[in-house]
């Protein structure tokens, strides 16, 4: 930290870099890692289609390229733009989320998508970033003493619970939990005291019996199935059992690329989306699974490193908020396909087939890079210089 401080130029601190200089500041090793992980996804999608670019890998490749441009583009935008517009961004996404509720397209039995003509947008995905940005701005502008006062925490709680309620109503339990967990992580990093979380946790547990009443039947079924997956191997436990069979039969070194019997004989459900990790670990074994996990861990370490090198609270919170969201994708998805938690429909980041999640993640990494590029910018409480 200190080194960065000593050697960084005043120009850099004030954020007066030209576009070309910003490009040089981008952590290209992180960009390379993100792209590499995306390419692992393409390779798996090629296998999922039985050795064909169609119908998934080719479209995913296009999205990956769009995402790449978005990521680099976001990285070079002045970070003060993001802090100034954080609430606007949040409001727009919240409106979209409400719009989905009102006239969203019915898909997969849940109202999640809004049709923009050229793109099926999932506002709940984008909300993950918008929430992190707006919470980061809120905490950035606060005094350290503020966060110790309970009334101060009401706005961020509302900022979290309103989209959470909307997403839950769609219904999308996985995304809802990610929003709450992500918001909790940002609040924790911002210094909210530990007993607040304990209180919130107790309140949440107390709400479970009430929430249970509001869960859809299929969601209840998923939770029950999780508790005893092998009780009904051909019913709702089928997916998770087949996924475990695929993983287990893959062994240490796997069955070989495009030789996963469970995946290619269609015993494995949703192998191009939620269960793509299973296919990877079936075909490449535990070795392949660990390599992918290592890639994810390295990406997470980048997140921590960037956050710790950043000299303003907004950047720190955004960097670790985004990283934590990324971690939640990884953990929920992989734990789900391995039968550690109930099936909640969260994609494997950068790899699962799906537009919004991929673009959202690339934008997240764009923000992370943006924080890195603008790590030494001196920022006032409202996003100005040193005010």
């Amino acid at each position, binding site marked *: *930290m200190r080194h960065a401080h000593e050697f960084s130029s005043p120009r850099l601190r004030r954020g007066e870099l030209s576009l070309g200089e910003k490009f040089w500041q981008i952590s290209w090793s992180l960009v390379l890692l993100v792209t590499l992980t995306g390419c692992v996804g393409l390779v798996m999608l090629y296998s999922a289609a039985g050795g064909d670019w169609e119908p998934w890998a080719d479209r995913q490749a296009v999205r990956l390229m769009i995402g790449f441009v978005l990521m680099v583009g976001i990285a070079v935008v002045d970070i003060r733009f993001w802090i100034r517009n954080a609430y606007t961004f949040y409001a727009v996404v919240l409106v979209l989320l409400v719009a989905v509720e009102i006239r969203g397209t019915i898909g997969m039995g849940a109202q999640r998508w809004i049709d923009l003509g050229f793109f099926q947008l999932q506002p709940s995905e984008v909300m993950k970033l918008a929430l992190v940005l707006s919470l980061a701005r809120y905490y950035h502008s606060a*005094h*350290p003493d503020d966060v110790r006062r309970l009334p101060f925490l009401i706005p961020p709680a509302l900022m979290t619970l309103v989209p959470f309620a909307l997403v839950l109503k769609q219904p999308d339990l996985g995304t809802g939990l990610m929003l709450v967990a992500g918001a909790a*992580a940002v609040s*924790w*990093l*911002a*210094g909210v005291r530990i007993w607040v979380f304990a209180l919130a946790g107790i309140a949440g547990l107390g709400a479970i019996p009430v929430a249970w009443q509001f869960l859809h039947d299929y969601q209840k079924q998923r939770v029950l199935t999780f508790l005893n997956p092998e009780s009904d191997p051909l019913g709702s436990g089928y997916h998770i059992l*087949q996924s*475990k*069979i*695929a*993983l*287990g*039969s*893959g*062994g*240490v070194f796997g069955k070989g690329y495009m030789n996963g*019997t*469970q995946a*290619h*004989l*269609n*015993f494995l459900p949703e192998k191009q989306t939620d269960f793509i990790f299973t296919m990877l*670990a079936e075909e490449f*074994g*535990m070795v392949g*699974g*660990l390599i992918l*996990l290592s890639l994810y*861990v390295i990406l*997470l370490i980048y997140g*921590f490193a960037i*956050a*710790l090198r950043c*000299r*303003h*609270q907004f950047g*720190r919170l955004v960097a*670790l908020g985004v990283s*934590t969201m990324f*971690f939640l994708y*990884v*953990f929920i998805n*992989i*734990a789900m396909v*391995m*039968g*550690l938690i109930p099936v909640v429909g969260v994609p494997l980041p950068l790899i699962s087939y799906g537009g919004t999640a991929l673009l959202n993640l690339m934008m997240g990494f764009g923000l992370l890079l943006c924080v890195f590029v603008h790590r030494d910018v001196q920022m006032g409480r409202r996003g100005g210089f040193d005010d």
Partner: protein
Amino acid sequence: MQRDGDRSKLFTRRAAVLGGVQSLLVSALVGRLYYLQVVESDRYKTMAEDNRFNLRLIPPPRGFIVDRFGDPLAINRQNYRVSLIAEDILRRARTSSERDAAVAVTLDALGRIVPLSDYDRVRVLRDMKRRRAFVPVTIRENLTWEEMASIQVNKPTLPGIIIEEGLTRFYPKGPLAAHLLGYVSSVSEEELTGDPLLELPGFRIGKQGVEKVYDLVLRGQSGTSRVEVNAVGRVMDEQTTEEARSGREVTLTIDMRLQEFASRRLQDESASVVVMDIHTGEILALASMPAYDPNAFTRGLTSQEWQALMANPRSPLTNKAIGGQYSPGSTFKMVVALAGLEAGVIKPHQTVFCPGHMQLGSHRFHCWKRGGHGSLDMVEALAQSCDVFFYEVARRCGIDRIADMARRFGIGEPVSLGLPGERTGLMPNRAWKSATMGDVWHQGETLNAGIGQGYVLTTPLQLAVMTSRLVNGGLKVDPILSRMPTKPSPEGFLAANAADPAPPASMGIAKMHLDVVRAGMMAVVNGARGTARAAAIPVPGWEMGGKTGTTQVRRISMRERETGVRSQDELPWELRNHALFVCYAPESAPRYALALCVEHGGGGSSAAAPIARDIMLETLRLDPSRLRPGEEIPVSALPPRARALLEETTGAVAAGAADASDDAEETGDSGDTPQAR
């Protein structure tokens, strides 16, 4: 800045905690991965293999049935069927009307190559909706080679159309040995034994005749293949792990040439005939007419065809040679004669006077000849079939001694080929009557039994056995149809083939008495006043002996008395008398026995004897017990009259053979006509 410094320190501490939590959770993922992919791996590997592979049965080809010279009676024929795999043409169709349209286009294209009925189209659409899209739906079976070839040539323009091959049972001679061979058909619910082979769709088992008796031998053993399937059961790959073992060939004692001739000769009548070797008991021909086409059962009968078979008054489904029971009539007189001779109640040359009737109490028993035969001895009585003579013998002998003798000759006894549908006839005695009717035996009934009427019932097979035992020196020969055991154990086959059949035991009847009866049978055909003298075999050295029989169909005698109808021709067909004839040949050294019954044929001498004579003539010409095919005496070497007799039928055989092959074609086609199955 101080403020930010504090925040930074707090942030760093809390980031470390967050990082710690995340590390723990990632470790949990790694641990779980290790548990699944290393610790539990073997278990899941087994489960994955279970998922992946199904065992599939390969049906064995059914064994052939051949005649005594190895000529095929039942074989398997390559059956080509054209099927449609729905998914190949439905990729783009989303709605059900689009789907129907796509199928219609394909069927139209196919219909230009092979004729398709509207029923076929409806059935294909219906079957497609019931099955998964990758399961082939049969459009038409039993394609001709030309149809199959032209579909193959046009395959590029017929998406989704495939040709499948299978084996179907085929009976080259069609109806000519139908009852004997039986037929195969789909397994019914009650026939399931738990053997998975029986549950294979399209698997067929023997339902009648030899096909049923030897079913386990003919069936063979199923093979297995390991089939890789996907989650919805589609076959991805197949490896044969155990080849199916074909069923064994079953050799019958039948001579197909004789069987064919006999069937042809009977053709128009509701009749049956059995030809057997009097020494070995081998059945050389066993025909029953009218018959059905067993090939029709293999493909499945239409309900109309089934109704027609059931409704036919000449009962084409019954094997009358073993399942038809008739009063033996005068063909029973040899047994009565032997019973009398053996009992000593009449001497071989003792005469009895026939005034045309016999008075018993208040009842008068008529001879068939109104004026009577006058005085005659046993040989003449047999030759002229005098009823009074045998009334007298029966009266002196008593029913129990007649019944004992009849049983020794197989009448009322289960002489059996082991075929389904066999009946045992009936030989009444006093004990039987009191047991079944609770009534005493009347002497009038003895007289009736003496001329083979009344309660006595026999099958043509029993009459053939009786005749064999009469002329083979009184040996208790049993009829056989095949020397193979009916259970498929390998040791059984070896044992049966190694052991010579035990020579038939003597029944202990005096040769002198048998000679008298044989002389009587000789006189029936060759005597000046023999009842079958018109049916003598016109080849020197091949003379045959025989006995006519005419039996009243029981209902008529009542009717006759009421209406006074006498002439058989004036009666409706179903009320006419049955005509029977038993014979053996050649007289110099008997070898073959024959029994024949023409239902409602009228009289034994007019309706049965000429047919029997022709069949016996052909038997002697072919001499299947001694000669191999090709060694038989050519028709051209026979005297002109004999030649004319045979050519009349063999000409019909030749013409009929063409008919038969036409029939086969026709049945192949009609299998796809739109009648309800």
